[in-house]
């Protein structure tokens, strides 16, 4: 298990390195935006990975509510935490890119806004996990996780329509338009690397959450055993 994990870690690092080369040196410089466009190779994969993790959180939440397995709860927690981290990267890289290109840090662009709302929903999920007490945390969190995920398509619909109703200064070309072939290669390599990285983080947090659970169990068991001795 340990060895497998280390192999995975090395593999992830290699992928990240290769993805970095692809993004920084191999992919051509974008004609109008210049080098700052290269941040896109991190922006897009982070977004996709974050969305994937939120989906994992949803599945784990459903699984927990039906089976009540501690593993499902650990997975839900791990995927939400790592998902929020990647979502944060999206929200930070977005403005860094927007500032030189659009001349503004933030715009209520449909995709950016939806991502922000998503980020808020899953941060509130983590806040709930922090504030809820006792053994009921997993149930409450799972319920909120399901609510959050069900909300995602509604958020997208609402914000798309919101944007079409409120025209904004014309911004040349969306992010995804007119990508060169080599640019796509760079995107895909980085997507693979980020997906592996996310998997690693989720695995680590999953193990930790399970260990914490086991520790609680052990403490509880210890308090049982202690009294048994005391009674004799």
């Amino acid at each position, binding site marked *: 298990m340990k060895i497998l994990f280390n192999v995975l870690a090395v593999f992830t690092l290699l992928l990240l390195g290769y993805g970095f080369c692809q993004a920084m040196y191999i992919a051509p410089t974008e004609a109008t935006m210049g080098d700052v466009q290269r941040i896109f190779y991190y922006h897009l994969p982070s977004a996709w990975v974050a969305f994937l993790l939120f989906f994992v959180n949803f599945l784990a939440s459903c699984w927990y509510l039906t089976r009540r397995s501690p593993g499902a709860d650990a997975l839900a927690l791990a995927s939400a935490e790592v998902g929020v981290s990647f979502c944060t990267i999206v929200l930070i890289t977005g403005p860094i890119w927007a500032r030189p290109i659009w001349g503004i840090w933030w715009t209520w662009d449909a995709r950016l806004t939806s991502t922000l709302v998503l980020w808020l929903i899953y941060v509130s999920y983590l*806040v709930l996990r922090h504030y809820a*007490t006792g053994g009921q945390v997993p149930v409450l969190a799972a*319920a909120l996780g399901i609510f959050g995920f069900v909300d995602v398509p509604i958020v997208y619909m609402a914000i798309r329509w919101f944007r079409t109703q409120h025209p904004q200064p014309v911004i040349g070309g969306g992010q995804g338009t007119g990508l060169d072939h080599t640019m796509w290669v760079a995107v895909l390599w980085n997507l693979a690397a980020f997906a592996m990285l996310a998997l690693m983080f989720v695995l680590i947090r999953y193990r930790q959450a399970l260990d914490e659970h086991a520790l609680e169990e052990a403490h509880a068991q210890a308090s049982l055993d202690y009294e048994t001795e005391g009674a004799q």
Partner: protein
Amino acid sequence: MTSPTLWAITRRSLVKDLRLEWRSKDAINSMLFFALLVVVIFSFGFDPTAEESRKIAGGLLWVAILFATVVALNQTWTRELRNQVLDAYRLSPAPPQALFLSKTIGNFLFVSILEVLMVPLFVVFYNLRSVGPVWQLLVVALLATWALVVNGTFFAALSIRTRSREIMLPLILFPISIPALLAMVDATTSILTGDNSPIFWIRLLAVYDLVFTTVSLILFEPVLNAE
């Protein structure tokens, strides 16, 4: 001893809640006063005589209602926690969904009363008149109020099991409610100004209501019995 039906229990619980509220006036008084405060403070914050203010009146109105709703929602389950009455319900064979529905309908009525009192204030302070048909505003109000209270009632039940539950409720309710809030504000503004068609927003609110009423009814039982 016939098995109690969902609707019969919902009705009984609703009548019981209304009777208790009538006698104690826990929720409605604080909610009404809070709403009045919000309207007055908003009038200072956003000059009501300015022409632009009227364009954002829809937004102000719904944000004010949202805040006041949170005050009412926080009261929803306190009454059930006093004397641990909730235990008596959990022990009975009555369906948990009936309890949820009765609370949601009760909150719907409270917030509707609040709107009936608050809207005239806004109309007066912001000198509003609607370009679009008023019946559309009514449809928006009904759908939007349900959207706020259905999730609000569920999350209030969720937060009674957390530390500092009064602050917990808005923290988990607001993010999820963003699309509904967007829809109610834009629909209201569209109708008031007559610039756009509110039909998309009304549909979105209807979908939102349908989806979250279903999800709440499914998930209420595990949340109620999480102890």
